[in-house]
C-alpha cells in the first residue's frame, strides 16, 4: 500500500536537505522514493501548514530495569490522576510511570525510539522484558560495565587488551545491548569497600587500579570492536562542586578516542561564586567544540518534583539527606554495579537548582554543532521526559528563556553567562538534536531521517509560534508507515524492535569466563545469557 503525505514542510536536515514543501511516500513500512507517474496511491493525507519530521529518538532515558522499578515501588503516592487541560502538557501520573503510560506519553510527543542507558548485566533480562511492555516504542539499552569485580580483577592482573575486548564483545552480545556505559568508573565498586570518594587518578582500595585505567581500557575495547556508539560515560564526582576537573580528566583518560559524556550538566560545576558553586559549562563546551571525537547529552534540569535514579551508589548515598520526600533506596548488585534512588525536588527559587537549570542551557547554546549535543533531561533525573517540549521552547526562544531566568535566585546572574547567549535554535537544529543526531551517534541507519530506506516513523506537527505547544501535541504519528495516532486518539498498535550491537570477537572467551564465573555469580552463564529479545509484542 502506497501512502502519500503531501503539502507539508519536510524538515529532514541530515543530508543538507532544505526544509521545504515536498511529498513523502511510505510503502511496506518504510520511506520510499517518489514513485513512477501513474502509480496508484492508496492513502493520501493533505497536510498543508504542517511540518513533517522523523520519529524522535531519546538516546538516554531511564525507562526499564531494576532501579526504574524500584523508583516506582518507592513512590506510589505520586500517582495521582491530574485534571487535564488542553493548553498545557499534562503531567505524568508519577515521575516514573508504568510502561503503558510511558509508551503512550512518548508517542504523544512524537517519540518513536527510546534507549535505557544503564542496564546491569545480571538485570538485562528484566530490562528487556520491561521495555517490551512499553507500547509503540522501539527500544534498546546500554550495558553497564566498569565496576564488575571480574573486570577490575582482570585489569589489575594486567590481562591482555584483546581479552578485555573479547569480554566486552561477549557481554554486549549475551545481554543484547547496543552500547557500553560506564558509571563512575570503579567508584561503585569502591563504595562496596567503604571508600566514599574516587577521582579519576585515585587508586581503588582493593584492586589498586584507577578509573583512568578502566576508562582507557574500555574505550579501546569499544573502538576495536567497532561499536557504533562511543563509550558512554557518567563521570566521577557526580554533582560535586568543582567536578569539572574530573570531567576534563575523564576526557583525557581516553587519550583521544571517541567519548560520549552523559548528563553533562551534572558534571561541569565549578567552585567559584558566592555559594562555592558555579558554572563551568564553557570549559566543557570548549573541549567538545575542539574535538569531533567528543559528544554530550545535557541532562537538563527543569523545576518540579522528580526522582533521581542512578547506578552511582557512591554519590547517591552521599546525597541521601537531600531526598524529598525523605526516603531512599540503595543496592549493591551482583558484583557488577549498584543503584541509588532518591526523590528530589528542583526549586526555582533555590540558587543551586537555578544554576543547574542555567548550566544545562549554557551547554546547549555553547556547543556549536547540534551533532555533538543531544536533548535529554536524563529522565527522570533532571526532569520527566514530558518536559521536552518546554525545553525545546527554551532553546528556540531567547525572550522566553530570559523570562524564566529573571525569576531565578539573584546571585545566579553573577555566575551564569546565559543572558549573553542569544542563540536561538532553528527548527532544523531541533530536528538534528532529537532525530538525526541521536540516530547517527547510535549507528541507526534507518532511523532519524526521512530519506528513502528510512523506517516509516513520521511525525506531523502543526506549525505554531509557541514551540512548546507545537512539539507537545503532534497531529499525527506514523509508525512503520502506518497511522497509529491522530489528534489525541490512539488508533492501533504496531510491532516494535529492540536494537542491539553484533560485534565480532573471539568466542573462546566464553571458556575463560566459564572457569571463573561461579566465583562471582550465583547463576550460571547459560542461565544468564539472553537468547533473543522478544520486543515484537504487538502494541
Amino acid at each position, binding site marked *: 500500500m502506497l501512502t502519500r503525505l503531501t503539502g507539508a514542510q519536510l524538515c529532514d536536515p541530515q543530508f543538507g536537505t532544505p526544509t521545504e514543501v515536498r511529498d513523502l511516500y511510505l510503502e511496506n513500512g518504510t520511506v520510499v522514493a517518489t514513485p513512477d507517474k501513474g502509480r496508484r496511491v492508496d492513502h493520501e493525507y493533505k497536510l498543508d501548514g504542517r511540518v513533517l519530521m522523523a520519529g524522535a529518538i531519546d538516546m538516554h532515558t531511564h525507562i526499564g530495569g*531494576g532501579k526504574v*522499578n524500584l523508583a*516506582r*515501588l*518507592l513512590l*506510589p*503516592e505520586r*500517582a495521582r*490522576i491530574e485534571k*487535564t487541560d488542553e493548553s498545557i502538557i499534562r503531567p505524568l*501520573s*508519577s515521575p*516514573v*510511570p*508504568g*510502561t*503503558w*503510560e510511558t509508551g*503512550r506519553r512518548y508517542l504523544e510527543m512524537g517519540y518513536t525510539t527510546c534507549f535505557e542507558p544503564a542496564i546491569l548485566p*545480571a*538485570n538485562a*533480562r*528484566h530490562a528487556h*522484558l*520491561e521495555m517490551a*511492555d512499553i507500547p*509503540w516504542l522501539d527500544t534498546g539499552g546500554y550495558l553497564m560495565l566498569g565496576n564488575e*569485580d571480574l573486570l577490575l580483577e582482570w585489569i589489575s592482573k594486567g590481562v591482555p587488551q584483546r581479552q578485555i575486548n573479547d569480554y566486552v564483545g561477549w557481554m554486549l552480545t549475551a545481554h543484547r545491548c547496543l552500547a557500553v556505559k560506564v558509571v563512575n568508573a570503579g567508584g561503585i565498586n569502591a563504595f*562496596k569497600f*567503604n571508600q566514599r570518594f574516587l577521582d579519576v587518578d585515585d587508586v581503588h582500595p*582493593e584492586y589498586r587500579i584507577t578509573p583512568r585505567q578502566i576508562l582507557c581500557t574500555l574505550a579501546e575495547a569499544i573502538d576495536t570492536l567497532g561499536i557504533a556508539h562511543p563509550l558512554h560515560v557518567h563521570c566521577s564526582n557526580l554533582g560535586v562542586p568543582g567536578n569539572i576537573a574530573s570531567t576534563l580528566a575523564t576526557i583525557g583518560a581516553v587519550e583521544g578516542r571517541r567519548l560520549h559524556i552523559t548528563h553533562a550538566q551534572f558534571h561541569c560545576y565549578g567552585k567559584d561564586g558566592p555559594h562555592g558553586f558555579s558554572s563551568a559549562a564553557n570549559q566543557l563546551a570548549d573541549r567538545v567544540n575542539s574535538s569531533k571525537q567528543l559528544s554530550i547529552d545535557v541532562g537538563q534540569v527543569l523545576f518540579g518534583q522528580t526522582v533521581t535514579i542512578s547506578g552511582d551508589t557512591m554519590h547517591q548515598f552521599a546525597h541521601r539527606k537531600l531526598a524529598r520526600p525523605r*526516603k*531512599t*533506596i*540503595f*543496592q*549493591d*548488585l*551482583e*558484583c557488577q554495579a549498584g543503584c541509588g*534512588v532518591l526523590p528530589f525536588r528542583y526549586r526555582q527559587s533555590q540558587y543551586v537548582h537555578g544554576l543547574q537549570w542555567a548550566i544545562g542551557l549554557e551547554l546547549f547554546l555553547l556547543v556549536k554543532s547540534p551533532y555533538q549535543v543531544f536533548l535529554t533531561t536524563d529522565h527522570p533525573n533532571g526532569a520527566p521526559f514530558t518536559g521536552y517540549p518546554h525545553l525545546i521552547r527554551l532553546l528556540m526562544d531567547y525572550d522566553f528563556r530570559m523570562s524564566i531566568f529573571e525569576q531565578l535566585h539573584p546571585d545566579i546572574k553573577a555566575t551564569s553567562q546565559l543572558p549573553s547567549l542569544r542563540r536561538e535554535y532553528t527548527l532544523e537544529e531541533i530536528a538534528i538534536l532529537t532525530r538525526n543526531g541521536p540516530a547517527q551517534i547510535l549507528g541507526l541507519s534507518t532511523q532519524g531521517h526521512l530519506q528513502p530506506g528510512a523506517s516509516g516513523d513520521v511525525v506531523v506537527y502543526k506549525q505554531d509560534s509557541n514551540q512548546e505547544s507545537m512539539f507537545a501535541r503532534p497531529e499525527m504519528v506514523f509508525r512503520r508507515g502506518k497511522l497509529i495516532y491522530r489528534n*489525541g*486518539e*490512539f488508533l*492501533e*498498535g504496531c510491532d516494535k524492535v529492540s536494537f542491539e550491537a553484533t560485534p565480532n570477537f573471539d568466542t573462546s572467551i566464553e571458556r575463560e569466563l566459564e572457569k571463573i564465573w*561461579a*566465583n*562471582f*555469580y*550465583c*547463576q550460571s552463564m*547459560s*542461565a544468564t545469557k539472553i*537468547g*533473543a529479545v*522478544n520486543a515484537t*509484542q*504487538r*502494541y
Partner: protein
Amino acid sequence: MQNAQGKRLRLAFEIRIYYPQPKLAVAICTYCSLLCEFHPSEPLACSLRSKILSRDSSEDVVPVPRIDGHETTFDEAISFANQLLADRNRSHISGAIRSVEAARAVLALASRVGAYVDPTGSDDAFKTILAIQRQGMMTASMSEVRFRSDCIVLIGDDRLLQSFPRLIEILLQRPKSSPQIARRRIIALGPWTSEVVARLRNAGLDVSTIDIQVLSIPQSLFQWSRCNEESMTKSSNLVSRWLCEARYLSLVWSATIIDQPQADLWVERLFQWIVQRNNSHRCVGLPLSGGYVTFQQVCTWITGFPGRVLVDGDAFTYDPYRNLLSDQAIVRLHIDETTIADESAAGRQQSTIVIAPKLHERNPMPRVFIPCSVAGIDQPATFFRADAAVAIEAMDCQLNSSTKRFMSVPAILERLGVAKGC
C-alpha cells in the same frame, strides 16, 4: 488515565504473550525462589523438592474441565467463564501467579474486564513493601552477599531454611576462590534450634548463635552498635565486636518468619539500622522474597504499583490496605500456575472460576474449573529470583508431568474477557 475530554482511554493495543525458549545447559527448579540450577541427570538434593515430589496425589480430583462440578469440554468451560465475567461489574483475581508470562496475562485480562488483582503471597510481601514505601531500604543481591560478605547475620528461625532449603549452598558457603574473604562468620540471630545450627556447622560454616526473640532484633542491633569503635573492640559483648569487625555485613531474613502484627514496622526499623550503619561501615540487608516477587515486579512496571491494585482499562488504583475489596457483584477468579499452592488458601474457598493444575478434594468446587499446565515444569517460563534482582528463564527437566497436555495459564487467560473487552 483520561484524555482531555475526560473520557477513559481504552487500551489501543493488544498484548500478546510470548514464551521463552531457553537454551539451557542445566535444569532450574522453581519450587522456591532461589531458582537452583542442577544437571538433569543428577537429582537435586533439597528437602522441599523431595517433599513436593513425594506428595500423595491420591486425593486430587481428576483434572478435567468442569462446570458446577460436572465434566465438560475446555471450550465450554471457557465460554461459561466468559459469560460469568461479562455478567458482573468487577472481578477479583487471586492465586499463585508465579511467572512473568502469567503476570502479564493476568494484568491484560484485568484491563479487559475490570478486576482487583491480589495474588497469593501478598500478605508476606507487603510486610517489606510497606516498609520500603515509607522508609526506603539498603540491600544487596545474592551474588553480592555470597562473594563479598565476611559476616552474614541470619535473622529468624528454622523456617528460613525450610522455605529456602539450599540457602547454605547458594548463599552461605563461600565461592571456591574468594581471596577477599579470609574468613566468613555466620551469626544465627533468633530462636534457631540446635538441629539447624548443627546442619549449618556440618556444612563447614563458622556459626555463632544468639538466642533472641525475633521481635526484639532491630532494637538489639541499635543497642549493640551504640558503643563507639574503641569500646566495641574491647567489649565483652561479642556481637558488638563482630559487628564492628565486619568489612561487609549482610543481614538475611524473610518476611515469612515475622509473625507479629505490623511486621512492616519491624522491617522498617531494621532498614533504619542498616542505613545508619552505613554512615561508617558497609552493611546491607537481603530480604528473601517468596514466589510473589515475580508478580510484584511485573505489576510494578506495568501499573506502577506492586499489587493490590484495581485495574480498569489503563486506569490503576492502588489499595495497599485492601479497602476497596468488596463482596458485591464480583467474580472471584483464582489462578494457580504451580502445584504447590497452599491448598487451604482462602482465595479458593469462594472462587467462581478456578484455573489450576489440580483440585483437591478439600477445596470447594467452583462454578468453573479449568485445568492448566505448570509454569517452569510443563513449559519454560520466566521467574524472578528471591532477591528480585535477576530474572531467569526456567525449565525443570526431571519431571514427568501429568499436566503437560493442558494449556498454560497465559494461553487460557488470553481467551477470557473477550466478550467484555475493549
